[in-house]
């Protein structure tokens, strides 16, 4: 049997296309449908228009969770990018143990995020956590600090764990960008007498800017949709201090089994991340991403 190249192409791409299409279009359609119905395992489905959205948007808990999420993203993403640049610069230096660090840094990234949350739960635990034990033994504190039951500290703990899991990827992406900056540029700048900071500001930073944008974009999405760490570390608490939108959605859908409200929330999160993506994409200078291939 001979096929025209074009139909062979369609056949080869078909399995992926069909699978992705079925599991994207239907769920999105279904989520939109559900978000306009009262939907739960025990009641018959009933059309309620935009009432779910009204309930969600009018409720204090939603605004609360939305703010927590935004604050979380606003703190972690710049922090991650800055730390990522520093780490990449560091790994770009030659020092004993560089390879060990480069290979070993995969561990936090490779762990299931729930496991990362669990490990750190033991570090931060109020009553016998490792951090408390360490600080007490070293004489820094006289009484154990309630890391996970003080709202501010619990938020900080989630940020630390998130950075722990995300920094490796951020750093390795930026390292790759760093190594693609032509060495001649640095040599030329050195001849011109530019200092360390001058070279960083005028050569390194413009050189890695497209990657900075990509990383910031990716990490913003990760920050907005992060769920596992909160689930394992704080369960959204204390109170609602670390209840972000995804955790809130999970509670509404799978704990309260209110699929209608859960779907409305999910649609809002999807729209929200779309807006964030669009804003960030617009911030990219034109032509920065679509570089001509060498």
């Amino acid at each position, binding site marked *: 049997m001979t096929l025209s190249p074009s139909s062979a192409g369609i056949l080869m791409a078909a399995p992926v296309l069909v699978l*992705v299409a079925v599991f994207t279009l239907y769920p999105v359609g279904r989520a939109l449908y559900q978000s306009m119905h009262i939907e739960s395992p025990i009641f018959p489905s009933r059309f309620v228009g935009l009432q779910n959205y009204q309930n969600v948007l009018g409720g204090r808990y939603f605004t609360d969770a939305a703010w927590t999420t935004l604050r979380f993203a606003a703190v972690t993403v710049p922090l991650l990018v800055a730390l990522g640049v520093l780490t990449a610069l560091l790994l770009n*230096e030659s020092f004993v143990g560089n390879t060990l660090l480069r290979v070993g840094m995969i561990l936090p990234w*490779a762990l299931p995020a729930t*496991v990362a949350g669990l490990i750190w739960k033991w570090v931060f635990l109020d*009553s016998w956590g490792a951090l408390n034990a360490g600080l007490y033994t070293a004489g820094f504190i006289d009484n154990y600090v309630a890391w996970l039951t003080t709202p501010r500290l619990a938020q900080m703990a989630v940020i630390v764990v998130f950075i722990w899991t995300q920094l490796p990827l951020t750093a390795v992406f930026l390292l790759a960008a760093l190594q693609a900056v032509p060495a001649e540029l640095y040599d030329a700048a050195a001849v011109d007498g530019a200092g360390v900071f001058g070279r960083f500001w005028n050569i390194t930073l413009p050189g890695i800017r497209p990657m900075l944008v990509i990383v910031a974009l990716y990490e913003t999405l990760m920050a907005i949709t992060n769920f596992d760490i909160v689930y*394992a570390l704080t369960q959204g608490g204390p109170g609602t201090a670390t209840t972000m939108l995804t955790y809130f959605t*999970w509670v509404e859908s799978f704990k309260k089994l209110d699929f209608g409200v859960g779907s409305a929330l999910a649609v809002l999160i999807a729209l929200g991340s779309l807006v964030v993506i669009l804003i960030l994409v617009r911030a990219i200078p034109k032509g920065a991403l679509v570089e001509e291939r060498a």
Partner: protein
Amino acid sequence: MSKRSPLRRVVTYGGALLLALFWFAPFVLVVVGSVLPEVNLVSFPPTWFADPPNLQTYDYIFTGKIPESFEQRGALRSMISNEVRDVPRAILNSLVVATAVMVINLIFGSLAAYAYARIRFPARAASFNFVLMSRLIPTVAIAVPYYLIVQTFGGINTYWALIAIYSVLTLPFTTLVLTLYFRGIPEEIDEAARVEGASPWRILRDITIPLALPSIIGAGLFAFMLAYSEFLFALFITTTRERRTLPVILGSLSANTDVTWNMLMASIAVGTLPTLLLAIPVWRFMVRGLTSGAVRG
């Protein structure tokens, strides 16, 4: 090369030390915590190293031999949860699911990638973008519909439901990466084979795949790791202990008050081992792929 200034070296080594501490200290804590008696871990003021370490937690996980501390009168704990004994089984579940996802990714990912890299067909660019964009939808937004689909087809608590979902989540990335790699292979090689009368299938099987094998394996392992670690879908699709995957069991252990801290740490250590063994080849693939310019900034 100019000599590095002393200041620069101090900053470099100081930074490296801090990073190493941040990244690795938690792992050391897990291993240390898993071999110490719980009574020492939870006492105040801390007396971690008052008693000698032992391997009884690991013994219990694998053989079911109950640690001594549970059998003494007036002991800290009288209840022991056999949920930790599900850890080896959960690792097996995760391995089965992740391996299947990897195989699906390798087969269908390579096929699609070859089509996108080499063959002109209608709606090629549009469908490629669609596949990529599908991953921008937050998983929590589609979790409930996925649940209902799986329920409709009787897939609750089955491997295949997890395999299907993880394949959908990983195939876009695999397709993208492999398309980029396949494009990097000189087209003249394909051309020569085509002149000889080889079909696209044969070119893919006999030329492209052997040439791109390291990247294909890397992409497959990447899919494997995502499937091995996934939590949210596994949490509501698996309902019995025979089917739960490792992230789900570990999540459940942390909420189980009859699980001692040293037992939990031992479970984490055991559950993490397969990831670590796989992590290094995956990472080398990613670093190499990135630095060789496959994903250009």
